[in-house]
């Protein structure tokens, strides 16, 4: 009897998705702004408690770390475009509800392909031809790495989250293996080869990277929003059955989309290895393949918003790094601040999408 009563009881607090009563967009912007400001206040209080510094000074040094010198501005831009490029890469797959957690590995094999071409063909081919081969190799490598889980998913319906995740570790170990083979002096560190790197425009080391990612951003935006492929991706993402019903080849779309995803990851690998480090290590991507997932989600898979969200993450990261350096507090502060701010942002997104209904009477029975 008692059991039954419990079963029929409406919970005191329920979470309901906002439907027709969705909030006006102006309100949405206001809420998000308030969330970011309150996140800054809360993290300010925590930093103050940990370091005993005035929070204004702390925020000032954050800005200083991000924009303080021309070099810092370039570094901020460079970090932003690399993160943005990986986020752009995972987005088509995410929009299709294919949880590609393998960007880390896909970028890394793209980088590995680039570095191999630089090593073995660098002094044998003229630079323009070399660059073309580097591009082709990195794109192909990233594609293959993404296609393996895609093919398994479309034929045997394997779990793509686990599969892509595991492929990351295979990629990392591959790089470790080839470092052992390539770095013949036994140090495991491959000397940079800037002579075979992407060309530098004027004196601006990162300008080419920035231009390439800007172009990729526009292309991905158009691809997702205006092309037939983009439409098919959305439909498959909404409902595979609908897609089948209207005659979309779901398997084909999955494989094609992951090829695009992997190719952009491969390009990021090229930018990181050919355009930035001129060498490779197992930590070249440094976890950005996972951060990109967050960037893409926060931007609701919109490439233009992603420019903002990737900048936000980089701003937090570099700013918090400067706080740690300036006030000699442990660098974990960077993760703490980033965590707090993301919690607030994701929290406010939750309340914008859902509403909380509190039952008038907890004993209401149907």
């Amino acid at each position, binding site marked *: 009897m008692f059991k039954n009563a419990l079963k029929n009881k409406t919970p005191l607090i329920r979470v309901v998705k906002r439907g027709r009563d969705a909030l006006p967009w102006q309100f949405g912007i206001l809420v998000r702004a308030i969330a970011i400001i309150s996140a800054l206040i809360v993290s300010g209080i925590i930093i103050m408690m940990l370091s005993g510094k005035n929070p204004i000074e702390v925020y000032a040094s954050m800005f200083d770390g991000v924009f303080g010198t021309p070099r810092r501005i370039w570094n901020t831009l460079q970090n932003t475009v690399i993160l943005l490029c990986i986020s752009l890469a995972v987005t088509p797959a995410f929009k299709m509800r294919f949880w590609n957690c393998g960007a880390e590995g896909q970028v890394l094999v793209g980088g590995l392909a680039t570095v191999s071409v630089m090593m073995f063909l660098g002094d044998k081919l003229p630079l323009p031809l070399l660059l073309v081969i580097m591009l082709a190799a990195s794109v192909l490598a990233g594609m293959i790495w993404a296609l393996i889980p895609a093919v398994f998913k479309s034929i045997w319906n394997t779990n793509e989250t686990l599969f892509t995740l595991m492929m990351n570790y295979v990629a990392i170990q591959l790089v470790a293996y080839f470092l052992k083979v390539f770095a013949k002096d036994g140090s495991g560190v491959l000397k*940079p080869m800037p002579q075979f790197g992407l060309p530098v425009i004027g004196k601006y080391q990162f300008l080419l990277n920035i231009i390439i990612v800007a172009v990729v951003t526009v292309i991905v935006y158009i691809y997702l929003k205006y092309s037939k492929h983009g439409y098919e991706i959305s439909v498959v993402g909404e409902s595979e059955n609908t897609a089948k019903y209207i005659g979309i080849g779901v398997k084909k779309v999955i494989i094609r989309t992951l090829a695009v995803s992997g190719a952009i990851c491969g390009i990021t690998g090229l930018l990181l290895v050919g355009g930035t480090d001129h060498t490779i290590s197992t930590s070249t991507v440094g976890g950005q393949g996972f951060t990109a997932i967050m960037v893409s989600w926060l931007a609701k898979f919109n490439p233009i918003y992603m420019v903002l969200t990737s900048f936000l993450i980089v701003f937090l990261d570099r700013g918090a790094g400067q706080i740690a350096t300036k006030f000699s507090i442990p660098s974990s502060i960077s993760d703490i601040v980033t965590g707090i701010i993301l919690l607030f942002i994701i929290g406010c997104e939750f309340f914008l999408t859902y509403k909380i209904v509190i039952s008038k009477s907890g004993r209401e029975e149907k």
Partner: protein
Amino acid sequence: MKKILALLLAVVMLFSLAACGGASNGDDIKVGFICLHDEKSTYDLNFLNGVTEVKAQLGLKDDQVIVKTNIPEGDECYQAAADLVDQGCDVIFANSFGHESFMIKAAKEFPEVEFCHATGTRAHTEGLANYHNAFASIYEGRYLAGVAAGLKLNEMIAAGKFSANEAKMGYVGAFTYAEVISGYTSFYLGAKSVCPTVTMDVQFTGSWYDAPEEKNAAEALIAAGCKLISQHADSMGAPSACENAGIPNVSYNGSTVEACPNTFIVSSRINWAPYYKYMIETVKEGGKIAADWTGGIAEGSVVLTDVNTKAAAANTAETLKTVTDGIKAGTVKVFDTKNFTVNGAALAADHKADVDTDDNYTPDTAVVINGIFEESKFRSAPYFDLRIDGIKLLNEKF
């Protein structure tokens, strides 16, 4: 208009350059440090402790020292170094082997700033006036640690726990680099100097920090009959395996006595403060930093922790003091070719080692002088990579 602007800019730059140049002469010297990880890694903590120590010694203010942690071994290292130059640093130090190429890149771009790099190998071949390598002759510390190990073995033999011919030590190493080989060989030679029958097995893990793997390696060595364990890797894996099995342990990087009160004997470590002090003072006085600098026991760069009397043999501290004095006075030479053989034969008097690093390990420098293999003399990073008799390598895959 453009010309005037360019001229103005040039003037401003000249002034700022002059301002930087002026800074290096006065008391307002600024020092930058680049670390691979942060205080959570024992390797980096050792460097960071050195920074704290030298700050106190030289009375440097907080804004004279900038420490950047978690700088990967990629272009970020160059960017961090360049940023430190922008902040007005007169001398910049980086602590990880893989930082070297990027420090050299920065050194070429900013000839007015001094760049110092720990554990690197290329300063003596790059020929840059403002790029320098530093290390410590940690083999002296390991030799002493080996002496403590040998004394412990002797004590256990005397107590009848095993015979002199069963005196086998185990060693957990990270990689088959010269740095590790030089380390375990000096440890072994130290033990052999007091316990002539000792032999040693070495197991490599392929990582500088892998607690489970290091623990497994230590346990396997103990199971294979090793009576004492030492290690050259950064985790607590091997020491804790020893404590669990009740096998004496000679540690590295600092004391592990708190976690291993019954088995920890002694530990050697590098203290970076003397080098920092040397590098900062040299820049302050406008002198030239050596291309390669190796600090030893005499300089305070190599230090031993206190001996744990609960685990160590009696009189260990006294013996270590005598041997330390011998090393300082030059009467004890760690790599004396009289004390070891390679494939049953003594080392040739004209033996060459690979000092100028290249891909094929080409031996390029005669390193034996008057019967002594002169480790860390021709460059600061170790280059002793001989497989001497008495030491068995169980795997060489790393």
